[in-house]
C-alpha cells in the first residue's frame, strides 16, 4: 500500500492557499449531478452535509440516533479553540499550531495542523453568524478562557454546553438544506458496510433500525464522520451508541487505520461507583482553570478533606509542573493522578480518585462567579454523586475520552480507498499522540465546513463515474455479507449477553492497554482477545429477530467489531516501542518517570492495512517530517 500524504509544496503558511487554487472545481451547474453519502451527523458530518448541499451537491445523510441533533458532539462541554487573539495575550496562528503539535507530542502532520490553526478563526465567525450564543462580556464582545496545555486564553465557550450549541448550529444549517430538498435525511439508520466498486468507494449497506430492512445507498463519494472508538473500553465518557463499526468495516474494505493505539484518557471524570456502571461522566477540563487538584501527603489518610490541613496536602500538579500547574495537558494530568493513586494516596472508594478543590476560587471570586462559570457542571456532579462541590471538593479520576487514532487520511482527508473521505474524530487526525482540550470541536468543524467541501470537489472533477445499480456483483456481495452476519449473530443462541462480553473486553483493554502499557500485558491481551471473540461467536445470546427494532442485535454487531478491533489497538501499542502522548509504555521512561520518545525510529504514522481474516494486518509507515518545528522533549515544567 502506498501512503501518499499529498501535502502541497511551499512554505507552511502558503500551502493551503496554494492548494485551494490548484484544486479542480466542479461547475456549479454540474454539482447537482453528484451524490455524496455522509455517515454521522456530529459536528463534522452535519457541517459537511450542510456545506456540500449549499454548494449544490445532492447529499444523503445517515445517523443511528433518532435525530441528527443527538450525535455525541452534543456532549462536549468546555469550548472551542481559535487563534483570534481577542484576549491580546500573545496568541497567533503560529502559536496555536505550535501548541497543538507539541501537545500531540510531535506525532501529527505539520501541514495539517497549521491549516487547522489557520481555519480556526473562520469557524468562530461562522458559528456566531449562525446564532451560537457564545459567552459575552458586558460590552458585547466574545469571552475566552484558558485550557490545558496552553498559556493563552483562546477557548470560546457557551456555558458548559459548547458542543451542544455548536452542534445545534451545524444541525440547523443542515436541516435548512433538508427543508430545501438538498439533503435527504435517514435517521435510525446504521451503516453496516462500505461498497467499493472498481477500487472506489461508491456506497453503503445500511440497516433501518426500526424495520430491520437492509438497503444499499449508492453515490459518487462517501464521507465517514462517525466519531471515535472510546467505547472499546466499555466504560468511557462516550455516548452508549458510539462505536467503531463504520470505520472498521471501511478498514476491512481497504482503508488503512492510523495510530489505533493513540487513545486519550481524560483526567477529570467522575470515578466509577459500582459494577452496574454503564458509562463515565466527564467534568469539563475548564474546571482546572479554577479548581486545584490534590491528594493527602500521607498514604491511606482517611480523614474527610475539610480536616486535612493545608500543609498535609499535596497539590501534586502545581508541585511537579510549576509553570503550567493544574493546566498541564490531559495525558500528563491523567498519568500523575494514576501515579499518586498507585502510591496509595488516592481518595474515595477503592482509593481511585483525587480531589478537585474550588475552595480557594470561591474565597477569591465568590460563589456567584463560580456558579456563573460552572453552575451546570456543579449541578451535574451533585446529581450523580449526591455531594455538593461548593462545600466539599469534587472527586475525580481519569477515564477514556477521545481517540486520536482513526482511519488514515491524506491532506485532502481522503482515505486509502479513493472516494472515501473521513472527517472529525473518525480520522487519525491532527492531534498526534494527544489532543489538547477544546481542539476536537475545532477539528470537526474545520474538516466539515472548510476543508472537505473543497477537496472533495477536486476528486469529483477529476474522476469519471459510470452509473452503477444494485445488481453490480460488488454491491450484492456487500449486502449479502451484512445479511449473513446478522443471521449468524441471531443464530448463536448461547448463554451470555452482549453487554457481558463488552464489559469483559473493556476491562481487559483498560488493564492491559489503558493508561500505561507494557510488552507483557499487551502480549497477554493479544492472546486473550481472540479467545474472547471465539467465545462470543459460540455463546452470545441475541434475542428477537432482524425485522424489528432490536437493540440487542444493534449492540451485538458493534461489540463483534470491537472484539476484532481491540486486537489491532494492542498490536499497534506493542509495535510502538516508545512513550508519547497518551501512549505510555512502561519500558520507555526516564528514571524520573517521564515518557521517552524515539524520534529516530518511530517518528511516523502507523497505518495498518487489512490482509484478510487469516493473516495479520500489514504495517505501513508514513514518515513525519518537521520542517518548521524543532522536535523537543515536551516540557510543561
Amino acid at each position, binding site marked *: 500500500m502506498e501512503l501518499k500524504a499529498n501535502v502541497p509544496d511551499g512554505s507552511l503558511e502558503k500551502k493551503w492557499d496554494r492548494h485551494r487554487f490548484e484544486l479542480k472545481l466542479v461547475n456549479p451547474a454540474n454539482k447537482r449531478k453528484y451524490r455524496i453519502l455522509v455517515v454521522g451527523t456530529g459536528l463534522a458530518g452535519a457541517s459537511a452535509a450542510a456545506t456540500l448541499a449549499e454548494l449544490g451537491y445532492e447529499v444523503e445523510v445517515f445517523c443511528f440516533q433518532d435525530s441528527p441533533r443527538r450525535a455525541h458532539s452534543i456532549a462536549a462541554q468546555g469550548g472551542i479553540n481559535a487563534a483570534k487573539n481577542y484576549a491580546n495575550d500573545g496568541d497567533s496562528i503560529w502559536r496555536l499550531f505550535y501548541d497543538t503539535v507539541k501537545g500531540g507530542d510531535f506525532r501529527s502532520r505539520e501541514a495539517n495542523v497549521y491549516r487547522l490553526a489557520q481555519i480556526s478563526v473562520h469557524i468562530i465567525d461562522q458559528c456566531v453568524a449562525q446564532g451560537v450564543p457564545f459567552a459575552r462580556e458586558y460590552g458585547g464582545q466574545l469571552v475566552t478562557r484558558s485550557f490545558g496545555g496552553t498559556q493563552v486564553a483562546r477557548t470560546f465557550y*457557551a456555558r458548559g454546553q459548547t458542543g451542544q450549541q455548536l452542534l445545534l448550529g451545524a444541525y440547523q444549517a443542515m436541516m435548512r438544506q433538508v427543508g430545501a430538498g438538498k439533503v435527504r435525511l435517514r435517521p435510525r439508520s446504521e451503516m453496516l458496510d462500505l461498497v467499493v466498486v472498481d477500487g472506489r468507494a461508491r456506497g453503503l449497506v445500511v440497516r433501518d433500525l426500526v424495520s430491520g430492512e437492509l438497503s444499499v445507498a449508492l453515490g459518487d463519494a462517501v464521507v465517514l464522520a462517525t466519531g471515535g472508538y472510546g467505547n472499546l473500553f466499555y466504560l468511557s465518557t462516550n455516548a452508549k451508541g458510539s462505536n467503531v463499526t463504520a470505520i472498521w468495516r471501511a478498514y476491512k474494505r481497504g482503508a488503512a487505520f492510523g495510530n489505533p493505539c493513540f487513545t486519550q484518557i481524560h483526567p477529570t471524570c467522575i470515578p466509577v461507583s459500582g459494577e452496574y456502571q454503564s458509562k463515565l461522566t466527564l467534568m469539563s477540563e475548564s474546571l482546572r482553570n479554577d479548581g486545584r487538584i490534590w491528594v493527602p501527603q500521607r498514604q491511606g489518610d482517611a480523614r474527610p478533606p475539610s480536616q486535612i490541613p493545608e500543609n498535609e496536602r499535596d497539590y501534586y500538579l502545581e508541585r511537579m509542573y510549576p509553570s503550567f500547574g493544574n493546566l498541564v495537558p490531559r495525558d500528563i494530568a491523567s498519568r500523575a493522578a494514576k501515579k499518586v493513586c498507585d502510591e496509595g494516596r488516592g481518595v474515595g472508594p477503592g482509593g481511585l480518585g483525587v480531589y478537585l478543590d474550588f475552595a480557594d476560587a470561591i474565597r477569591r471570586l465568590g460563589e456567584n462567579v463560580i456558579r456563573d462559570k460552572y453552575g451546570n457542571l456543579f449541578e451535574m456532579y451533585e446529581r450523580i454523586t449526591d455531594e455538593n462541590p461548593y462545600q466539599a471538593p469534587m472527586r475525580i479520576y481519569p477515564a477514556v475520552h477521545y481517540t486520536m487514532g482513526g482511519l488514515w487520511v491524506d491532506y485532502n482527508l481522503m482515505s486509502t480507498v479513493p472516494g472515501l473521505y473521513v472527517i472529525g474524530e473518525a480520522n487519525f487526525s491532527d492531534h498526534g499522540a494527544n489532543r489538547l482540550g477544546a481542539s476536537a470541536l475545532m477539528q470537526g468543524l474545520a474538516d466539515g465546513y472548510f476543508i472537505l467541501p473543497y477537496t472533495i470537489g477536486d476528486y469529483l472533477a477529476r474522476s469519471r463515474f459510470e452509473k452503477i445499480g444494485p445488481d453490480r456483483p460488488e454491491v450484492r456481495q456487500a449486502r449479502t455479507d451484512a445479511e449473513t452476519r446478522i443471521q449468524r449473530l441471531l443464530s448463536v443462541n448461547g448463554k451470555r449477553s452482549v*453487554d457481558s462480553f463488552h464489559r469483559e473486553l473493556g476491562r481487559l483493554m483498560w488493564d492491559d492497554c489503558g493508561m500505561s502499557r507494557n510488552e507483557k500485558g499487551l502480549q497477554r491481551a493479544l492472546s486473550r482477545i481472540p479467545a474472547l471473540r471465539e467465545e462470543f461467536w459460540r455463546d452470545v445470546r441475541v434475542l428477537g429477530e432482524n425485522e*424489528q427494532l432490536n437493540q440487542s442485535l444493534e449492540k451485538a454487531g458493534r461489540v463483534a467489531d470491537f472484539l476484532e478491533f481491540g486486537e489491532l489497538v494492542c498490536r499497534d501499542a506493542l509495535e510502538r516501542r516508545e512513550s508519547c502522548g497518551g501512549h505510555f509504555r512502561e519500558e520507555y521512561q526516564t528514571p524520573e518517570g517521564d515518557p521517552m520518545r524515539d524520534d529516530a525510529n518511530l517518528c511516523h504514522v502507523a497505518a495498518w492495512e487489512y490482509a484478510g481474516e487469516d493473516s495479520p494486518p500489514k504495517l505501513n509507515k508514513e514518515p513525519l517530517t518537521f520542517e518548521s518545528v524543532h522536535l523537543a522533549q515536551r516540557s510543561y515544567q
Partner: protein
Amino acid sequence: MRLTLHVWRQKGPKDPGRIVTYDMPDVNPDMSFLEALDVLNERLIQRGEDPIAFDHDCREGICGACGMVINGIPHGPRRATTACQLHLRTFKDGDEIWVEPWRARAFPTIKDLVVDRSAFDRIIAAGGFVSVPTGSAPDGNALPVPKKVADLAMDAAQCIGCGACVASCPNGSAMLFVAAKVSHLGLLPQGRPERRDRARKMVEQMDREGFGACTNTGECEAACPKEIRLEFIARMNRDFLRGTFAERPEAE
C-alpha cells in the same frame, strides 16, 4: 433497596400494549434509572425474554435521547433532571414505579418506551435556523451582543429536544420546544432578519404535525429538564402574530 417496576410493553406500533410488572429486589441507590433498566434487561435476556426497548445515548442529560414518563411525570420526579441523570436514591425502598413512553398524537410509539419524535426535526427544517451559508460570516466580534441578551438566548438555546414538554401537556402541544428555538434565534442580532417569518413557518409546521395548541397550563415548564421558561412562549406569540398579520408576503 427493593423496587417494583410496572413497565409499558408494546411490541410494535400495532400492538395495543400493556403494563408488565417486574420485581427488582436488590438495586443500588447510586444507580441511575437507566442503569436499573440495564440490570433488568440483563435479567430478561437470561430468562429468554425480550429486553425493554428505550432510547438513550449520552447518559449525561444533554443529547435528549432518553425520555420516559416515570410515575406520571416526564423524566420522573426530580426537578431539572433527565431520566438518565435520575438516580434511584430519589426513590424509597419498597417504592412502586410506573414507567411509560411519551404519549402524544405527534409522537407515535415504535416499541415499548421508544417513540418517533421526527416531527421536531421537521419543525426545525421549516425555519429553525439562520440562513447563513458557510463562508459568508463577518468577524465574530463585528456585531456586539450585550451579555444580558446572549445569556437570555442561551437560556432558550439549552433545549435538548427531548419532548418532555409535549408529553406533559394535556393538549400534546410543542409550544415550548418551538418557542425555545424562536426565542434563541430571535433574540440575537444574527437571527433578527428572519425572526417573524421563522416563527410563522415553525408554528405552521407544528400544526401540520398534529401537535395541540397551548392553553397556558404550564406543565411543560415544570417538566422541562432544562428549565426552559414559559415566558418564551409569549415571546414567540408576539413574533408569530407579527409574522402572520403584519408581514405575511402576499405571494405565498
